[in-house]
């Protein structure tokens, strides 16, 4: 179990992490989600003692990280796959970690095989690795000590689709064995697919947290009619407000049954009618990202 209690980290006038509290529970995958620069990496560094916060504390299984003897046997950490000596071979990187942990060469070979780094690849120096290979090496490094807690910062970055699928299976089975997994990502979709619990962070503050079901279940309806104009009229008549969602469908905050009744009353043929899952979360996430809009607004097509 990973617990953060009222953790705050300031750099001069900038508050990177602002009174953050959350728990990653055993047997579950916790997704730590937020746009780039939201404070995910800083929070994770605080958990493993690489950054000391001004306020609050972080514990793993009730212990401060630095109080855990030979911590890699309990907590597997991957904070930055690129933070490896470019001049070492992949195998040598694992060998050094294994030596420190008191593990033999056999375990290194096991991990190389587990993450799918072939003998030839393991002999290459890390400077010649792709980001995906570095991630695999980093995962192997985190798993060396067979830890029960995993802390991974953006672990699927740079992985190909097959790699992402593999990583999902790996983390799911780790949680199924009773382990605790905390992983961060800036991609909502990715976290939705892996995580049981989700923690949303924006500008250093937690903006939402809960189980995936809680967060994805939002009141709202998605409806797609055969004739949009007809449905608009029918909904207006029933006093239901709805907004076009761009694909010929509409989103409304009303319950599906009410939208269905309105359509039936107006004699509108529907193609689709369902609860709009995750709409609220996606909106919140887009809002978070838009707030720090780094990209210029997309100009609306001025056709002449």
């Amino acid at each position: 179990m990973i617990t953060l209690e009222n953790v705050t980290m300031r750099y001069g006038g900038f508050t990177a992490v602002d009174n953050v509290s959350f728990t990653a529970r055993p047997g579950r995958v916790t997704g730590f989600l937020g746009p780039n620069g939201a404070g995910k990496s800083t929070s994770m560094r605080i958990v493993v003692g690489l950054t000391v916060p001004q306020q609050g504390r972080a514990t793993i299984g009730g212990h401060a990280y630095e109080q855990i003897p030979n911590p890699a046997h309990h907590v597997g950490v991957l904070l930055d796959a690129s933070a490896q000596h470019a001049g070492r071979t992949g195998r040598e990187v694992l060998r050094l970690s294994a030596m420190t942990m008191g593990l033999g060469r056999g375990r290194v070979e096991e991990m190389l095989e587990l993450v799918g780094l072939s003998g030839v690849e393991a002999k290459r120096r890390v400077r010649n690795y792709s980001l995906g290979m570095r991630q695999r090496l980093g995962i192997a490094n985190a798993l060396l000590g067979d830890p029960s807690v995993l802390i991974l910062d953006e672990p699927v970055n740079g992985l190909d689709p097959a790699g992402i699928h593999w990583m999902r299976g790996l983390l799911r089975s780790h949680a199924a064995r009773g382990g605790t997994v905390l992983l961060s990502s800036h991609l909502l979709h990715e976290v939705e697919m892996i995580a049981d619990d989700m923690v949303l962070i924006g500008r250093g503050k937690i903006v939402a947290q809960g189980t995936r079901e809680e967060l994805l279940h939002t009141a709202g309806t998605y409806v797609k009619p055969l004739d949009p104009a007809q449905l608009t009229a029918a909904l207006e008549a029933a006093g239901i407000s709805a907004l076009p969602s761009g694909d010929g469908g509409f989103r409304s905050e009303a319950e599906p049954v009410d939208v269905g009744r309105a359509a039936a009353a107006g004699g509108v043929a529907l193609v689709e009618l369902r609860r709009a899952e995750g709409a609220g979360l996606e909106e919140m996430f887009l809002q978070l990202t838009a707030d720090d809009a780094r990209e210029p607004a997309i100009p609306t097509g001025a056709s002449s």
Partner: protein
Amino acid sequence: MSTTTTPRVLGPIDIAGTSAVPFSTLIKVELRKSWDTRAGLWLLVLTGAFTMIAMVIALAVATTQDVPMTLGSFIATTAYTSAFLLPVLGILLVTSEWSQRTAMVTFTLEPNRARVILAKLVAGLALAGSVAAVALMAAVLSNLLFGLIEGVSPSWEFGADRLGGFLLAQAFAMLTGFALATLLLNTAAAIVTYFAYIFLLPAVFAIAAVFLDWFDSLRPWIDFNFAQAPLFDATMTGKDWGYLAVSGLIWLVLPVTLGIWRVLRAEVK
């Protein structure tokens, strides 16, 4: 991508069953890090090679010019060359962790940073010891060859006190590099500063001592290079030890203390 590990049920963290990483393991890991990259390995090879080359040159000069040599004079030559690259070894032990950002991994494997730095220090001294051993062997060999070439019986004149002074000087060279590295945490800056310290500073101190009377009497207390000179010819007096202690405090103890203080507090990214 196959799963070869036997699945174990993962429970809550029980730290009673694990003991801390032994200090000897940390030293072994740090020693391994000094040669497991191409740069590190070459540096070690070059340090050894330069020692040998210096011997060959000394031997050539001595035999052609008929300079009388003793074991002591050969050792003095080798001490000068090894004191040259040894500190770079000490610097790389520390700064590569920061420039290559491996400190993130190192300090998560052993969160007690003071132990890691101490292990690096011991590893550095062990390396200095091995370089000194190579240098001594080269000196003995050169002295034998000198006797053979010149047709005289070689002079083994070299006291135990001089051996101590030689080893101490080697250790100081390594420690100075190490101290600057922990203070600056940057390879280039540490190496440049070290060479400025070893080449530029003595000249500046010497010039200042000539022109400024007050500085002339102050110099021995603050010039660590100057204070080490009597170590090489084993002429240390009580006063010399005083100079060595005070100037060592300035050039070794102070930077290494500030440096360790910095590493312990620094945010590792």
